[in-house]
């Protein structure tokens, strides 16, 4: 296609690479069904995020995946004015640390809200962004 040569190259957004540093396939399979899984340490009764091979609470490997409620609040946020590579066509976009009811914080995009309207402490709920056929990516929006 000759006309494609003159058009600016569309940024290629990075897609997750599962199972590289630890087994995460269960997380992505659940995400595809609209569920957010966290790891739960059965010894300490605490959740953890991001996924690890063992529990950061006990050092043991007695952990399992459990579904999160999807409810949380904004712990902090930033409006990305300059893009991380692959996100150039999304600016400005909002990144937030969302504090989940389960006692963990997760980095995610905030949707359906403007940067100037986001407040620390604001209640948010889980939503998903379809990045590809394989990846449904967790995000949050005002509750």
């Amino acid at each position, binding site marked *: 296609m000759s006309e494609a040569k003159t058009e600016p190259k569309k940024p290629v957004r990075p897609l997750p690479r599962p199972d590289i*540093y630890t087994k995460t396939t269960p997380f992505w399979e659940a995400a595809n069904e609209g569920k957010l899984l966290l790891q739960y340490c059965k010894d300490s009764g605490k959740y953890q995020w991001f996924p690890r091979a063992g529990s950061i609470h006990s050092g043991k490997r007695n952990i399992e995946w459990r579904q999160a409620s999807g409810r949380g609040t904004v712990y902090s946020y930033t409006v990305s*004015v300059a893009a991380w590579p692959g996100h150039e066509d999304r600016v400005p976009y909002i990144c937030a640390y969302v504090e989940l009811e389960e006692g963990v914080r997760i980095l995610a995009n905030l949707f359906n809200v403007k940067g100037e309207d986001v407040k620390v402490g604001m209640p948010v709920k889980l939503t998903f962004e379809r990045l590809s056929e394989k990846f449904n990516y967790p995000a949050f929006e005002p509750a």
Partner: protein
Amino acid sequence: MAKKKDVAIVGYGETPIVLRGGRSSYDLASEVLEQILNQTGVEKSEIDGICVSETMSETSNPFWAVFLAEHLGLQTNWTQINGMGGASTAAGIIRAASAIRDGLCTTVLVVASDAQSSYPPTEQGGPRWEFQYPVGLRGPTGVFGMLMQRYEHQYGLKYEALAKLAVTQRNHGLMNPNATAKLKAPLTEKEYLDSKFVSTPLRVLDSVMVCDGANGVLVTSTENAKRLGLKKAVYPVGYGEVTNYKVDDLLADITESGFTVAGPRALAQAGMTPQDVRMFHPYDDFLIAIMLQLEQIGFCGKGEGSDFILNTDLSHKGKLPLNTGGGQISAGQPGLAGGGLNLVEAVRQMFGEAGERQVSDPRNAMVTGIGSIPYAKNWSCSNVLILEQ
């Protein structure tokens, strides 16, 4: 613990900091060694230990430390590499001191060299491919934007205080012949406040510019320094280090870091209070990091950083001279050798060799390091080193 002065820093070297200069980390480190040998008159054969910082430009080589020693012509009895980012050089001095005390070696080259702006850094992997890159948080600037936002929410943040830090360090950088050419221009507080947002509320002028460069120091026993007839020496008298502060407390505030532990520990070991510190050379990847360190090491209380900065003369002639070489923010960040930049400046000051920016009473200095960015926290490594004449 009693204050020890049995191990000393007896020499230092530093290359100019250059944006995309194209010289390799080997080449830059070689210049540091030559400077140290010329400055001290020590023969290369006296060096029997090497402690190297991991780099961005060479870390794909798992043999970086031994290759560098080979490149420099050093046969060593003790070889170490520290992968603690900007905390590596201060950590290296303390580890070298321990090795010297243990008799493993006598004279150690502690060196950091990185051509990060010329040669693409290696990918750090881990969870980032899945849980950061698809979200688009813009690396360190994004993480520190989050940190500033949270700090502002908890304590209020006076941007004029950050502006003052920017201008103070720039004024110092203008007097530093090694500072990168691109940053050799006067800066006003208004220019800081008007600079573009990168990741709100973090601005372009909150951040370092990644460059190339190298720096290092020579560490030996005080006894050996005497044997070698070395006249100049500064002593590491206090040290604290924490990695992965509160890693298993997932709701710990990101506005609190390992400096709350490392700072008081270093001060106690040195038998000092913050009021005794004559110069402060903190790791400065972002301006907010300086403010957080002032609070957490104990120069002022939590949330009082803005007022402390506004009420304290931080110039080289002031009450608490701050990063008198301009810091990384105004001299340029020589990649992961950035942790040695402010340290070498402290040693230079204490040797009385800082030229027009020389402070009048350099009897001691506090130097800090910050290394690596973890997931949804602040930084991975915090360390504090106190040097005394």
